[in-house]
């Protein structure tokens, strides 16, 4: 890694003020950031790294009325093991327990997982060799190049990279709210793909905590090449809200996690084997397959059906 200066923040406000500067990046678990710095895959390299781990009180998992409030620095493994989350937001607990490898789950934080950058191999190519649409360039190289892991549901902002966070679809399906230093954002809007970032955070805005409404019935499923440690090829979260409406969110199929409203229509009358199948079909009814990723359509169809059936059978 090229040299940088390391600063330890003591409050989130201090860290946010520092993060507003151009040559500053923030570090929590570090599992994503240090890799990108070693590869030098971004158009810029920071002069300062601000450590968020020294900020007290941001790693808690608490019950507050009808909500579970999870600090941005809560470790993925701690969320996966939390009895509170497992009971009232099962999809999130399952998503956290399937993200990355056991060791990375001990290091990686929820805030880091939802703010990680996309995992397109053109975007992340070492030494910034592809100035792609995501970096402000003109072209998405995946369109003509190797796109086996890319979006099947279309293009957004000229980019075809698939979102790769496991917790994102779970939070979107559960209707969580992301609390930042400046505002509160519904999870579904938070993950809108936007240039370099995989979310709509402004410069100098940091995630403080995540508020998850207690949900009795929710599930998460993930399909990856290696079960033990890999990013998802497709992941899917479903949750039944207080009004008994089923939310279905597909991840890794689009530059952001995508709510499948047509699939939700299909299970309006209740989830059965037939309606789950219909929901799966509806989810992939409008796909835009690229030269090498047609196989993901079948995985997405099956995963929607499988996750819905788990909701009624378990």
């Amino acid at each position, binding site marked *: *890694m090229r040299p940088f200066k*390391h600063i330890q923040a003591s409050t989130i406000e201090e860290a946010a003020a520092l993060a507003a500067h151009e040559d500053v990046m923030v570090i929590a678990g*570090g*599992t994503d950031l240090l890799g990108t710095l070693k590869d030098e895959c971004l158009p810029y390299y920071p002069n300062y790294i601000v450590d968020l*781990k020294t900020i007290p009180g941001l790693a808690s998992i608490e019950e507050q009325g009808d909500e579970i409030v999870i600090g941005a620095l809560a470790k993925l493994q701690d969320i996966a093991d939390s009895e509170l989350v497992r009971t009232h937001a099962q999809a999130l607990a399952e998503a956290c327990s399937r993200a990355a*490898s*056991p*060791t*990375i789950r001990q290091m990686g934080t929820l805030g880091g997982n939802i703010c990680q950058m996309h995992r397109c191999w053109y975007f992340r190519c070492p030494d910034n060799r592809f100035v792609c649409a995501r970096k402000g360039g003109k072209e998405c190289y995946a369109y003509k190049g190797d796109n086996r892991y890319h979006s099947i549901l279309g293009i957004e902002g000229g980019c075809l990279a698939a979102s790769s966070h496991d917790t994102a679809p779970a939070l979107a399906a559960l209707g969580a709210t992301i609390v930042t230093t400046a505002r509160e954002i519904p999870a579904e809007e938070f993950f809108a793909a936007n240039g370099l970032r995989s979310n709509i955070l402004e410069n100098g805005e940091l995630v403080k905590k995540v508020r998850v409404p207690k949900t009795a019935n929710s599930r998460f499923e993930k399909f990856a090449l290696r079960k033990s440690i890999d990013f998802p090829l497709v992941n899917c979260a479903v949750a039944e809200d207080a009004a008994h409406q089923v939310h279905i969110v597909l991840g890794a199929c689009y530059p952001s996690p995508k709510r499948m409203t047509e699939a939700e229509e299909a299970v309006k009358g209740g989830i059965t084997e037939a309606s789950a199948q219909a929901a799966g079909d509806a989810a992939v009814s409008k796909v835009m397959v690229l030269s090498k990723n047609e196989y993901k359509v079948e995985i997405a169809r099956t995963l929607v059906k499988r996750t819905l059936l788990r909701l009624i059978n378990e």
Partner: protein
Amino acid sequence: MAQIPRREFLKAGTAALAGATLSALGLGSITASAEGVIAEKQVFVYTCPVCGKQFSDFEKLKAHFTGAHQELELPKTVTFRINNVEYDVFVEDHWTLREALIRAIGLTGNAKQMCDRGGCGSCTVLIDGKPALSCSTLAVECEGKSIETSEGIAADPEYRPLLEAYVRNDTAQCGYCTPAQFTMAKYILNKYEFAPTEEQIRLELSGNICRCGTYARHVKAITEAAAEMKGGK
């Protein structure tokens, strides 16, 4: 205690032997025998990162640095507690814990550079009892933390049955991933109170990739060690 032939002895246990030559690489190193990794027997040599001059304690090195290399900024000092011994070492802000272990301390066991991106688990150490990837942890963020590596576990008489089970089952083929797997083994034994099931072992070791395919041997070794150590506890 069974005698283990030197040839079969884990690399982890003997890593400290290389201390003398490693000092050229960095700032300090352990020069001691395998058994000497245990706290009271070890000798730590502090080496100046600029001119290579050696000192017996950190204060002397610091005094030398401020005197002889005035034109350079004094590097950050970090205090690690590695295998129950405290070390003051010079580290750079951008050094990962893996780099600090090999350059500043001279411990090679868990400081393996494989993928260096957190994908293989070859550099796993225990920080405050929890597994962490030393390639994806900054050294300056480990100030005051307790770090355990395979060298310490191999030298710990309490974990001798684990080491012996590892040797007996020939878990090291090329041996590159073994120190990290061995470190995870201690974590697994403690987490599941010396009675892990095969499924639990496989789950916990799933982030440690072995290209030789020794996975089954690790499961066997840990199961055997667990059975032996549970009785002895």
